């Protein structure tokens, strides 16, 4: 087994881990914001997929990765705004609407892709990277971590920002109150629905951004149904992270490595069927849930609509 862990192997392992982990990180942080505010966002998968489609099409026609990310985020936000309308303002069933949004986006993006590209899957040009001087020289990890598109660094920075937001600001407190005891937030003079709406829209943007990253940086193309359960994995990450953004980063890294492992093994010449590869992350989640389930935490008012004056 000694021969397996060559430099090329470890480098491609880390490089792949970052590529796979960033969408999970973005969507996971997003979901955490929603959950904190008391909205279980089952539509996350749909928001990611819409972001992947919107982000790809924009980047494809405009040749700009940044514009692609922006439109990807906004596409996710558009899906999220439906969730806001139906679930936050009209208090409709969050689970039914979440499923509806995911199925609807799956169908819609596949249809749009079909009518635009038929059965071809055009690729984007090579990803421009922002190299960090000196750090990029580090053997093995330099290429994987410090020769990436700037959005990668921003995503990691986001973890710190959100952690600060949760812990040190009124915004964070309001979010937490909206999920833990909405009536108290209302009594304090803050509109619960507006707080939740803002949380869900932010989630939509981040999930859409994650989807756009998957399409534009991860794959370089759009394939219908390409998010393949990543949105749901992100929900699990957010659940297990118990409201700590840093734990989402940890979880996303763990997942990234487990997913990248198979690709890296193939680089190293070990042949594994793709179905086994696809099982790995889900098997990981189940294992983690069985081992650590009693530590997962969800806010008391999660999934419940808020009506003023109702007990």
């Amino acid at each position, binding site marked *: 087994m000694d021969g397996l862990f060559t430099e090329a192997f470890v480098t491609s392992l880390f490089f792949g881990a970052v590529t796979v982990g960033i969408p999970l990180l973005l969507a996971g942080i997003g979901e955490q914001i929603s959950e904190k505010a008391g909205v279980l966002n089952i539509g996350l998968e749909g928001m990611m997929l819409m972001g992947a489609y919107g982000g790809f099409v924009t980047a494809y026609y405009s040749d700009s990765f940044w514009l692609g990310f922006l439109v990807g985020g906004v596409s996710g936000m558009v899906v999220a705004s439906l969730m806001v309308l139906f679930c936050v303002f009209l208090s409709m*069933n969050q689970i039914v*609407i979440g499923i509806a949004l995911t199925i609807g986006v799956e169908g819609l993006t596949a249809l749009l892709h079909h009518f635009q590209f038929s059965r071809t899957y055009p690729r984007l040009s090579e990803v421009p990277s922002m190299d960090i001087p000196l750090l990029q020289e580090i053997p093995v990890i330099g290429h994987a971590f410090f020769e990436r598109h700037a959005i990668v660094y921003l995503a990691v920075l986001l973890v710190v920002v959100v952690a600060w937001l949760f812990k040190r600001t009124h915004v964070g407190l309001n979010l937490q109150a909206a999920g833990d005891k909405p009536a108290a937030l209302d009594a304090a003079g803050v509109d619960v629905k507006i707080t939740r709406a803002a949380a869900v829209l932010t989630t939509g943007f981040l999930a859409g951004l994650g989807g756009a990253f998957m399409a534009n940086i991860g794959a370089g193309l759009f394939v219908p149904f390409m998010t393949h359960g990543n949105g749901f994995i992100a929900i699990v990450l957010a*659940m297990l992270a118990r409201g700590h953004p840093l734990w989402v980063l940890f979880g996303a890294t763990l997942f990234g490595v487990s997913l990248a492992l198979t690709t890296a093994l193939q680089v190293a010449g070990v042949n594994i069927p793709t179905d086994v590869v696809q099982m790995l992350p889900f098997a990981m989640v*189940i294992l983690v849930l*069985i081992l650590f389930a009693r530590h997962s935490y969800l806010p008391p008012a999660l999934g419940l609509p808020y009506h003023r004056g109702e007990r």
Partner: protein
Amino acid sequence: MMFSVLRVLVPIILALVVGGLILLALGKDPIAYYEYVLQRGLFSWSGFQQTIIRAAPLLLIASGLIVAFRAGIWNLGVDGQFLLAAVAAAALAPILITALPSWLTIIICCVVSILVAALWSLIPAFLKAQYGLNEIVTTLMMTFLGISFANVLVKLPFNDPTNSVPQTEILPVADRLGRLFDTTIHSGIIIALAAVFLVHFVMTRTSFGLRLQIVGANPRAARHAGLNVGRLTYATFALSAGLTGLGGAVEILGVWGTMRADWNPAYGLLVVPLVFLARFNGIAVIGFTLFFAILMIGGESASRRLGVPNFYVLVLVALLLTFLALVEYLDHVSRQRKKA
């Protein structure tokens, strides 16, 4: 009565209209599409038979979902349960048939499929009963795992190398589920209808069903009333997954006779809205399933003939769910107003 009919018809009509507008935006004629779908799915003899055949697994899945939803458990892991049960039936049947009569083979395969699916649901059941973990997420994880696992099973241990594509050994047509009269419809539809009626009876007319409903309505109250919520949770998962698994067995033993790698009809999330539309009512679900089967069979023909990919049916389902929830909401609001 009039009102409840409206409550069902309005979402369907709205979904068809908005879906039609989307078709129009994509440059397709919605009227021609719907007409073609009806023609192929209902008004042609071969299409009608296909519709009934398709309804069998859908009804079995629906009956499983009714048990779960009435007990307040969101079993969204249908696809994994369905496929693994299908693999079990497909792998077992050709071996058993060499030693046993076909009726016994079919019965044993069905039982094994039910058990396989029920076992697969054990992990989410355990996490729910033990730690109160949200089963939506766990069943979804298990379903992604199950879909890939089913493929691995078909490609490696149960692969019959005499075929060009990876698939299990083929069960001879003569040994599959019997046909009804002179049609191509297999007897799976009878099994499915029996299951739906049985589930409806158990859930509405027996004390066991009542207990499940109490757990579904308010688990805490159920605990106070002395019900063993943990055990009922396991029972719900096992029943729900078992019925779904029977659906997988019926589809393999009735239609395909073999399981191909990468075969995944993904009925799971599509049946969910039907069960909602029927308000967890077993009798009503039969009508909706037939409606949906027509849509699927007709839609599959239309995708070949009219160039509207079958993804369109997904959009239609999503619209249906949304309008359904909307009508429900408006109904709720108007009732609140009346009260006030």
